[in-house]
């Protein structure tokens, strides 16, 4: 380590600091003493010079590291960090950003810690979904359609078969749903398809192009057509709120943010982003449920009908399910969804 001694300058009596001078062209050190009277910087020893303080700068304080005095001739002097130097930059008319002060006091550090937690939460809960919502509207419709066509093709090839439901029955369901008035004005344009859910069982999903797919198994599971219509209203909710595109945006942005801030932690970053993403997915499901509730009430059907079929789709979850699924599921726990549906104000249909 550099041994630093402050001592009186032999000639002027000014306080001098011992340092090592480098000329910027070679790594050979020259022992020097540095002192200042406020207008000039005096260097003496193996290298002798006098510089106007306005032409010289000193590196900002950082931890307890060496400071460097940068000279106009590309030379530099390594000096230890001593309190004397803190006074000098002010004399030289140069001040740092004050970061060193922030970093060396525990109170601003603790405030920063609190700030980071609050800012992260705000970013996650409000900023990212808001930004994704706006960006989702900028995505060309043609691209969204392409994605949907591809998805439907994959589903048809590997998971579903043509519907075995009679055409008349299909038409009946579609016609009744078409007569339902959607909440809050125009419904998104949609196209209803029926499929035999060979590998996916009773199921329904909506693609961003407006294609809503429902499996025969789900139709069979319903004991009342109003249950089917409730599920369709839920899927229409996904379309109305553009959930697929928003989900895509949010997960992409989350991945980028997590990468930038947690970059060097690798696998942990990926799992954290995936976990955080699931909450967005659950929020979308709740939003679609709310849409279904208002659509059902609009058409004088008790939202309880949707709860009935949810109970049949997931009997385990309706009883409360496993504790972990609350945080690790793509959907909220079924019991929670049912409770939300039942808590929505009773419609005329119930009375």
């Amino acid at each position: 380590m550099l041994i630093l001694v402050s001592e009186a300058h032999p000639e002027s009596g000014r306080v001098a600091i011992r340092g090592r001078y480098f000329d910027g062209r070679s790594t050979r050190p020259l022992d020097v003493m540095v002192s200042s009277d406020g207008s000039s910087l005096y260097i003496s020893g193996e290298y002798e010079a006098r510089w106007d303080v306005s032409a010289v700068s000193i590196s900002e304080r950082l931890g307890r590291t060496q400071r460097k005095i940068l000279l106009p001739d590309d030379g530099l002097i390594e000096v230890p960090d001593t309190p004397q130097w803190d006074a000098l930059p002010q004399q030289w008319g140069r001040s740092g950003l004050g970061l060193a002060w922030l970093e060396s006091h525990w109170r601003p550090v603790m405030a920063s810690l609190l700030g980071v937690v609050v800012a992260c939460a705000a970013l996650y809960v409000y900023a990212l979904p808001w930004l994704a919502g706006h960006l989702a509207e900028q995505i060309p419709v043609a691209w969204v359609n392409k994605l949907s066509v591809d998805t439907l093709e994959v589903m048809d090839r590997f998971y579903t078969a043509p519907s075995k439901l009679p055409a008349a029955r299909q038409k009946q369901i579609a016609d009744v749903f078409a007569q339902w008035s959607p909440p809050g004005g125009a419904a998104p344009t949609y196209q209803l398809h029926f499929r035999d859910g060979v590998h996916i069982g009773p199921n329904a999903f909506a693609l961003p192009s407006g294609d809503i797919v429902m499996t025969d198994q789900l139709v069979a599971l319903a004991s009342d057509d109003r249950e089917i219509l409730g599920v369709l209203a839920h899927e229409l909710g996904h379309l109305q709120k553009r959930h697929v595109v928003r989900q895509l945006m949010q997960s992409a942005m989350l991945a980028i943010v997590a990468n930038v801030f947690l970059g060097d932690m690798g696998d942990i970053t990926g799992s954290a982003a995936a976990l955080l993403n699931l909450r967005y997915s659950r929020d979308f499901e709740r939003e679609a449920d709310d849409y279904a509730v208002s659509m059902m009430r609009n058409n004088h059907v008790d939202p309880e009908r949707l709860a009935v079929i949810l109970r049949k789709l997931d009997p385990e979850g309706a009883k409360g399910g496993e504790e972990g699924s609350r945080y690790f599921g793509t959907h909220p726990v079924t019991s929670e969804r049912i409770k939300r549906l039942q808590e929505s104000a009773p419609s005329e249909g119930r009375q």
Partner: protein
Amino acid sequence: MENDLENGLQAHELQEQGARNEFVFTGRGSEYFRIWIVNLLLSIITLGIYSAWAKVRREQYFHRNSLLADSAFEYHGNPISILKGRLLVVGLLFANNILGGLNPIFALVMGIVFLVATPWIICQAVRFRTWNTSWRGVRLGFTGSYAGVAKVYFLNGLLVLVTLGFAAPWWLNRFQRYLVSNLRFGGEQFESEAPTWDYYKPLLVLFAFFVVGAGVLGAILVPAVFMRRGSSPSQAVVSSVVVGFLIFYVGLYLIGGSYVRARLSNTLWNHTRIGQHQFESSYRTLRLFALMVTNALAILCTLGLFAPFAKVRMAAYRAETLALDSADSLDVFVAHQEEYARAIGDQAAELLDVDLGF
């Protein structure tokens, strides 16, 4: 007696000329934590813009706390260049993640763009990092080129594909040797001749360990699951198998990772010279393993708050195990004149930092 005297004289001569110089790291976790948290806050509230300045501050902290022969390293990165590079990378990632997710043709185009850009990104990142690092006022540099990186990265990579991965250690060896032997300090070029076989040994050991380990685990667990009198395995057994595999893989990742990292890093640096100065790397697998395990656990338990402490611990261990054995004095390096003149000209402004990460 005579020998002793001669040795003594030689030792004395060596000392005169420089002898062994150890790297020293003086940073402290509690100190870096405060810098890190301030950086993090400012980065978040400026929506990432400040992260470029934060990177400069972080790099300065680690450079200035790394000492060789009593002199600290210095970092000169310009935050504006870092910001430009980051905007470029974020733009590319955005385009790739969002648009690529929607449109397969766009995804294909982006894939090709990334492929073509990879050697450029590697070159640019190494050049930016080295050129912005100095010691005693003399800067490091990188003499590698796009074509050179493309050759060792892609052309050699083809052989890895053809040999179904058997050439991978050779590929890594050539790639790292290319990067290191194109480093320069002042006018002095690094030379690296790490033998290929020394890359094969640890990777083969890891591979064997993996195969045997998985075999033993399978032999124990599979019968336990499926031979319970024909009945389907119970929930408890299945979850214990999953947990068993998980522990096995995490353990393998950590101990195998630290073993390979220690061996490869030692091999690389113990065969790297700069002029008359020989690098010496003495990573030890168990120390590295202990460090990685405790760091990972502490980061998990503190929800990431331990990360700055972990980084300091790793940097301290790296410095502790790295030395420069010199037959010559460290005072003789001279800046590269041409490069020096270029730095002052506008060409230095073209340097973009394309490295992403807070």
